[in-house]
């Protein structure tokens, strides 16, 4: 499905229009599929490190030859076209992670190997962050699911959940309330355990660390985050109470959200019909052909159409997870898991953002958003796994 467009379609491949370009991109994507599938499955495992290195180089090269679009230096300009290496870095990183973890020498329960894996993941993430593309950086969080599946300690999951919980509670209710909640929780846990000697010292240590966390979250939010990032979070958690400020936000960052929610809502149950969306045809939703494309789906296809899209994504990701579990080689399994997790993060953040459930973060919706690099990146990401999966009979 291409982005909505204005006016009559004269030529489906009209390169002066986004839909024309996207049509060309789709055709090229099929060629990429053919190439991806025609390569030997072993090729990906063997060349994983080299692909990863090339990808890193392409990211570094941006600092020299990159083209600045909308404040992010994430593109190479080639002729009239642009190429975004961060879209390709995803599958390269996935390959590298799979390769490293599946190495017989690697033991993910050791701190040493954990650190090395983190370096592999964080290197591209850091480069992308330096190019001012925070959204794409967030995607690398997907690898947490991979590491967890492959055996890092439970404590990481608990710590992560605690961190997120403390962060949200601190921002919403302030440091003092958070500490108070923690104390009450600690007491309840102690009571529940009913030990003769309650673990007083560990309790106090955990309490102290948590409180410190709360303070640093608050500090991070107030001093490190840029104002527009603060606004997004404050919007998400409904922190802002000052009506003037809200009014101002409505015209700036809330504008996107407002318009996209209105567009989705105006679709109703059955939608307004293909190309009949008044808000999208009028381009009221900014970035509606890229990051906000789901609002077009919502407006034109209604609840019926958009639920089908949601269900299809769930089925696709679920299917990839199930297939990954059924792989015989660890390399294929780790790679498959990475694919599922990356798609999941994109799906979660993009659709969540468009519907106002998640702070505004600009990342594309796989196979929907306009853009050649993203489309090709996802195509390669997915079809490498398809190739690996088709080869599992030969694996041993």
């Amino acid at each position, binding site marked *: 499905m291409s982005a909505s467009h*204005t*006016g009559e379609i004269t030529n489906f491949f009209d390169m002066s229009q986004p839909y024309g370009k996207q049509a060309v991109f789709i055709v090229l994507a099929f060629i990429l599929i053919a190439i991806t599938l025609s390569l030997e499955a072993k090729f990906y495992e063997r060349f994983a490190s080299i692909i990863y290195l090339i990808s890193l180089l392409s990211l570094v090269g941006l600092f020299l030859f990159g083209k600045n679009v909308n404040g992010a230096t994430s593109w190479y300009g080639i002729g009239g076209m642009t190429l975004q290496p961060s879209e390709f870095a995803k599958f390269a990183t996935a390959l590298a992670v799979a390769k490293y973890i599946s190495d017989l020498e690697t033991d993910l329960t050791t701190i040493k190997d954990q650190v090395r894996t983190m370096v592999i993941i964080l290197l591209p993430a850091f480069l992308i962050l330096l190019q001012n593309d925070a959204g794409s950086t967030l995607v690398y969080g997907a690898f947490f*699911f991979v590491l*967890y*599946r492959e*055996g890092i300690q439970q404590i990481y*999951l608990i710590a992560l959940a605690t961190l997120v919980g403390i962060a949200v509670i601190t921002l919403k209710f302030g440091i003092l309330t958070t500490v108070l909640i923690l104390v009450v929780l600690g007491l309840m846990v102690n009571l529940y355990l009913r030990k003769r000697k309650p673990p007083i010292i560990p309790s106090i240590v955990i309490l102290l660390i948590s409180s410190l966390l709360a303070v640093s979250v608050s500090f991070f939010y107030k001093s490190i985050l840029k104002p527009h990032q603060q606004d997004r979070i404050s919007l998400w958690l409904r922190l802002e109470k000052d009506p003037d400020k809200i009014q101002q936000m409505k015209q700036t960052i809330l504008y996107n959200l407002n318009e996209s*929610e209105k567009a*989705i*809502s*105006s*679709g*109703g*149950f059955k939608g*307004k019909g293909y190309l*009949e969306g*008044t*808000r999208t*045809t*009028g*381009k*009221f939703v*900014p970035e509606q052909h890229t990051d906000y494309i789901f609002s077009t789906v*919502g407006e034109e296809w*209604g*609840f019926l159409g*958009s*639920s089908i899209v*949601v*269900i299809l*994504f*769930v089925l696709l*990701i*679920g299917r990839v*997870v*199930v297939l990954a*579990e059924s792989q015989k080689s660890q390399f294929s399994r780790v790679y498959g*898991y990475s694919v*599922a*997790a990356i798609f*999941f993060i994109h*799906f*979660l953040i993009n*659709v*969540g953002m468009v*519907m106002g*459930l998640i702070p505004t973060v600009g990342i594309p919706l796989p196979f929907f958003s306009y853009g050649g690099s993203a489309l090709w990146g996802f195509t390669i990401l997915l079809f490498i796994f398809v190739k690996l999966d088709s080869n599992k009979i030969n694996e041993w």
Partner: protein
Amino acid sequence: MRKFLLLFLVVFVGVVFLGRLFYLQVYSFDSYNIIEDNAIRRVYDYPKRGYVYDRNGKLLVANQPSYDIMVIPREVTDMEDDLLSEFCGLIGISPEEYEKKLEKAYRYSPRLPQVFISHLSKDDYAILQEKMRKFDGYYIQKRSLRSYQTAIGANVLGDIGEVNQRIINRDPYYRLGDLIGKQGVEISYENTLRGQKGVKYIQKDRFNKDIGPYKEGIYDTLPVPGKDITITIDATLQEYGELLMTNKRGGIIAIEPSSGEILAMVSAPSYDPNILVGRERSKNFTKLYRDSIANPLFDRGLQAMYPPGSPFKTLNSLIGLQEGVVSVSDRFTCSMGYRYGNRRMGCHAHHSPVNMNLGIYESCNAYFANVYRRIIDKYDTPAKGMDAWHKHVTSFGLGNYLNNDLSVGQPGKVPSSITYNRAYGENRWYTTFTLSNAIGQGEVLATPIQLANMAAAIGNRGFYYTPHIIKSIEDETIPEQFTTKKYTTIDKQHFEPVIRGMYDVYNKGTAKWVQVPGIEICGKTGTAENFTRIDGKKVQLTDHSIFMAFAPKNNPKIALAVFVENGYWGSRFAGKMASLMIEKHLKGTISRTDLEDWVLTHSLENEYNKPLSNEPFKINGETELQLVDKVEVPEHLKYPEKTSE
């Protein structure tokens, strides 16, 4: 566990998203409304507003085009100095004013079209039209304004003006800048006159740029032109009434008893409706609005409530007869008044004892005090008597809104047992407490239109049609409520003696000096005491002069109430004017030119200035009348209208 975390999260997120979609698209979806959609621009096509004709087909209100210069601030480009001065010269403002206006418009909204200069004259428009394309961001918009073909009837015809926010909130039909009836028939028949504006839906983008008709215009509608209406007013009679009211304050309401149609509805002082059209409208309206002394926007025929005084006595006669407590020949003594307890209701010198006929034409207070007491005391308690009396009185359309098609009105007041229970406590009052009702003073209040309607009901011997202003609407019938007889509670036979008395008012009673040869007029004079406040003190002013009449005696063609503020006794001003109006309506020409001359040469301005003079003054005196040069009667009012049937 480790295997299922991602799977679980994927399904969980999927369910949450479906829930959110359901909430947005099904739960909080309120059916898609094209009006609410800010991606659709609506372009309106305003239909012609209906014309207003008088009962003889004379055109009273038409339309005229008016041209406004509109601006879309963000499309305005900086002009070279000589271009700017040319533009300012053309529209007649200084460059500084230009800057100020543009800035103000910009602040209101950079992208919405707004009026920059309103109401250009036709000549200005002709010159500007050719040059407009040189000025980016400006264009000329044609609007339709009212064009009054007459200088009379401002209170009847009303005016139109821009809608205010309150109306917009209440009725989504109206948009900012739309015109709506503000007074008179323009309000009452707003929906008929305005028609239905047409609308085109145009799809626009987020830069507010048009990108074509929405869905090929399937929702677009054509304008429906407003309908012309014919009102019951006789323009000639109306103009004559306004002429008679020159230099006086008050109201005249004339009704055709056989139909309830209002023939004239004069309120004085008034103004030329043309001053509320065009560029001067708001200035002039403010002036009228702020004039709290002459109060020209106050329709004295419809809104002024006064104790009706003696005309009300006819009603008490009718009720007495209907209740069977008095007969035509019953006689009561009057010794310059009526004594009850240690109090006394005064009366003037006349024969005694008094029967009904004499009571009416001599307006004897004592006679009606007796009749009134008999009515109330017929029942066990004064409360029951009061309520029986109240029922009869209200059946004449008094004490409540008439529910007609006039834009303003007042209910007046008719007391009942509730009124006195509230004032004195239940069972703690007697008939004598309410005795001033006998002579139409005290708690009774009525508007001139209610008095005129009462006259019509008496003239019709027991029924009336709700007085109304609409005669016909092209291809529509007028509301049924105006064509249904409303019966009073008095039987037909009781009217004759009372009408006889009213006839004798002209024949030998209080109005014998204003009779018109050849016309049998039945009437009743009245005076109403009235007060004002000066520096917080209640001060009595000269009485209002009131007259109620219908003519001819049988099958009346006109019933009217005339009311002149501070005109002193009934036949002094109101009686003369009533005779003249009746003669004008029935004959077309005036034979009693002596009456006409008297009315047109006497002004009450001195009387009105008294309470404002800050000096002590006397009231109800003969000498204060001010003589003025006679107001000339226009030629077309001297002879019967050619167009009338």
